[in-house]
């Protein structure tokens, strides 16, 4: 098997109401890749993870993880994966060290080997000092880091992280992102679900967008954004009276159909960093005063909008 994760026509249909949580998903995640699975709440992300980690049985289709069929060889799958599910289900009455050592034994490490391995993981996620405290005293970020450490205790080939940063403060989020990058550098395949655009953009080598249980788009973040369109320069004019002249300047710089509204001018560009100096010089030469100027690049939300007709944020709220 040349991929870490492969699914073909994977489906999960619930008997009650016959609704599809996941419908006909084809995936191929390469070894050592960070694959971002992006979608709003209820899109099917967690169901997809639960199918791949053998917590759910597919209604149709096939799935292989680390070369093992999730239905025919679930034990093989479980031995190869690390899992951090959406809710960091950790005993508040146990210490971080105890939980890591338990997890190590459950993954086949000897009792003797589990203690140093646990200590190493605690250090790696920055919890050495808190290792002997009960988890009930941990912050949300500390719990998530412990959850990640538990998922890594047996050095899995494939790691599943289901919304690992949901509810975390920005600094905890950045710490977790660093750890995911380090895992990628070490060659671990990471299947990461998220509802955060920035997270997918920052971490994922490739992004799959799921909506209504179906995979609606899949590519690198840059390629997905390129499908939506080029970046544009958003110019706020000091005087609205300069609107018409600014249109002429923008056309001369290269955008045949610049947009203008009130004080604002939007100029489509191939690559903002190249055209921006020319546009600034041209506006200056024409004596047009500029209040502010930004290069606006397409986001994954624009991709989501194009593919589903709704913004990701709106979907998440709905």
């Amino acid at each position, binding site marked *: 098997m040349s991929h870490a994760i492969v699914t073909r026509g994977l489906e999960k249909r619930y008997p009650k109401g016959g609704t599809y949580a996941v419908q006909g998903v084809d995936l191929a995640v390469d070894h050592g890749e960070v694959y971002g699975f992006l979608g709003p709440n209820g899109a099917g992300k967690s169901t997809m993870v639960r199918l791949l980690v*053998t*917590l759910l049985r597919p209604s149709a289709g096939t799935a292989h993880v680390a070369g093992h069929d999730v239905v025919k060889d679930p034990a093989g799958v479980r031995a190869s994966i690390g899992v951090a599910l959406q*809710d960091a*289900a950790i005993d508040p009455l146990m210490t971080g060290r105890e939980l890591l050592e338990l997890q190590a*034994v459950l993954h086949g490490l000897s009792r003797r080997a589990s203690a140093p391995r646990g200590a190493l993981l605690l250090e790696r996620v920055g919890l050495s000092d808190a290792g002997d405290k009960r988890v009930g005293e941990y912050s949300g970020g500390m719990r998530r880091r412990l959850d990640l450490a538990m998922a890594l205790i047996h050095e899995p080939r494939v790691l599943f992280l289901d919304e690992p940063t949901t509810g975390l403060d920005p600094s905890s989020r950045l710490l977790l992102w660093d750890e995911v990058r380090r895992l990628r550098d070490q060659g671990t395949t990471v299947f990461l679900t998220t509802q955060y655009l920035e997270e997918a953009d920052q971490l994922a080598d490739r992004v799959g967008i799921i909506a209504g249980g179906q995979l609606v788009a899949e590519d690198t973040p840059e390629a997905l954004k390129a499908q939506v369109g080029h970046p544009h320069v958003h110019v706020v004019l000091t005087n609205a009276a300069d609107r018409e002249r600014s249109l002429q300047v923008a056309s001369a710089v290269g955008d045949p159909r610049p947009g203008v509204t009130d004080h604002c001018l939007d100029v489509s560009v191939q690559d903002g960093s190249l055209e921006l100096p020319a546009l600034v010089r041209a506006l200056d030469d024409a004596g047009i005063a500029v209040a502010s100027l930004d290069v606006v690049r397409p986001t994954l939300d624009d991709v989501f909008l194009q593919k589903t007709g709704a913004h990701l944020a709106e979907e998440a709220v709905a």
Partner: protein
Amino acid sequence: MITPSVALALRALRLTLRRPQFLIPLFLMPSIFLAVNTGGLSATTRLPGFPETTGFLAFQLAAAMVQSLMLSGLQAGIAVSLEIESGFFDRIVTAPVPRLAIVAGRLMAAAVLGAGQVLFFLIVGVIFGADLAGGVVGALVVVVLGALAGVAFAAIGLAIAFRARQASIVQGLFPFVFAVLYLSSAFFPQELLGPPADTISAFNPLSYIAEGLRAPIAYGMDALPILEGLAMTVAVIVVASLLAVAGLRWRLADAA
């Protein structure tokens, strides 16, 4: 199979010891019943039909033991329900652990806890003057039977927990513990129970378990009640464990 089972058993014991709200009732509530019954009802030993015992306290120790063991079994079920609710169960299930280890670990913990529970009441009994008819050997028999009875009641708790969707449902079975207790010979000799309790008590497995625990303490090393108690305990272990495993399979029916 053995290593993960032991690891899960140690975890279950550790958590029980760290939950005073779980642990204290196992000892406090039966102790209160023991004190009240012994203090107020000791004259019942003079009733016609009351078996010859070394004393009413010795007679009542078995009632305290089975009460404590039944509560412990219920709590094992509550603990598993909480694990299912919190998602910790999913963590265990996604590890490469034989599914039977999930049940075996809990039952191992129940055996250790059960032995500790009956030992506690034996010590309490001796401190307050109970005369152990079976001596040290009898005490050892009680500890072994107590450990097995702990497994039996925990298996019942697990069988319920895997089927119940919430811990509160398992918790709601608390009154049934007392119904089953009072419809057995745990508190009073079967001969002194009125109908229909006497008939129900004759068919209630708890009666045999209680008598098996009681004999070495209150009557002496009479083989029949001890063997009947052992046989009934093993029967309950077998049936309840099969139900627990079936419940686990049902719980994981949608898993790969």
